[in-house]
């Protein structure tokens, strides 16, 4: 069984309220940076065991759908590579 490392990014679908992004944006403007908008995403780095890359990818997809993202409001992307 091989070890795989996945980088998962969970972001809000366009149009959803992002309080952390809004607050950070305002704070950056207060510091006089010409910031237009800030969107906050969550990154999970997951190490897992799987026979092959395709198997690891399918497990990561299911992990996103079952727990890490809510399909009503979240988008997710992931990259899987062999763990060194």
């Amino acid at each position: 069984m091989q070890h795989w490392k996945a980088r998962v990014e969970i972001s809000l679908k366009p149009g959803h309220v992002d309080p952390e992004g809004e607050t950070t944006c305002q704070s950056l403007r207060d510091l006089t940076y010409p910031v237009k908008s800030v969107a906050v995403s969550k990154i999970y780095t997951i190490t897992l065991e799987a026979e092959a890359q395709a198997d690891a990818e399918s497990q990561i997809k299911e992990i996103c759908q079952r727990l890490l993202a809510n399909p009503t409001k979240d988008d997710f992307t992931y990259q899987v590579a062999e763990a060194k």
Partner: protein
Amino acid sequence: MNRDEIRVCILRVAGTNCDRETKTALQDVGMTAEVVHFKQLSTKENLMEYDMLVVPGGFSHGDYVRAGAIWGKKLMATMGKDIRRFMDEGRPILGICNGFQVLIEAGLLPQSQGVSRFPEAALASNSPSGYNCRWVYLRLETANTSIFTKRILKRTLRIPVAHAEGRFLFEGKKADRQLEELINNRQLVFRYCHEDGEYADGKYPINPNGSLYDIAGICSPCGTVFGLMPHPERAYFGWQSPNWTMETGKEPAPYGDGGLLFESAAEYLEKKF
């Protein structure tokens, strides 16, 4: 079944709150209520020994990942069979605030096609953003589906909310169809409204979180699973109202509006079992 024989399980994990207030309210209604830790129930005790399950408010598991997500998945992964049997036998499940988030994340609400593997809706960050703790008015849309509302004989209730993620949403493209289904199935129980019962129409602070269609509480098609963002246990006694001195002048009214939900459940259980 006599009322004092009704056993209610108030489930808790790290981060749960208002479990004691809920217990006090349920006991005052005449039922026997116990606060049980999730670990205790999933290992030593049996859910089927209880007649009703309450998932209370709070910040279960620190609201990590997403409010209610971790507990919701854990609940179904470790006790899914028991939960399904519990529901099939008509035993009620109530989710209050974080408990509502848990039921949504567990796929136990709205159950448009039965229990879902992935959440069918979301309780997203409030709009306008931020934690909102205030008393709101709820308009009862349908008293006959949920077993928690059958004793409510008035149009509006006054109960407080306290949350940062209570914005009920369906998914963009499917939202209209899902909402229509919810209404047609008579699963839409409470909507945020003005004191006179006029809908909030999305306007803050009457609608405190920007919920789609002013949705504050929904139930399963059969009415035994019910979730709402407001806290009925914080509006149980009359003295919990922040302005009872202005309302009555001398003494607080004995009870607030929240007790009607617990009373309704007690009557249902007395008759059913």
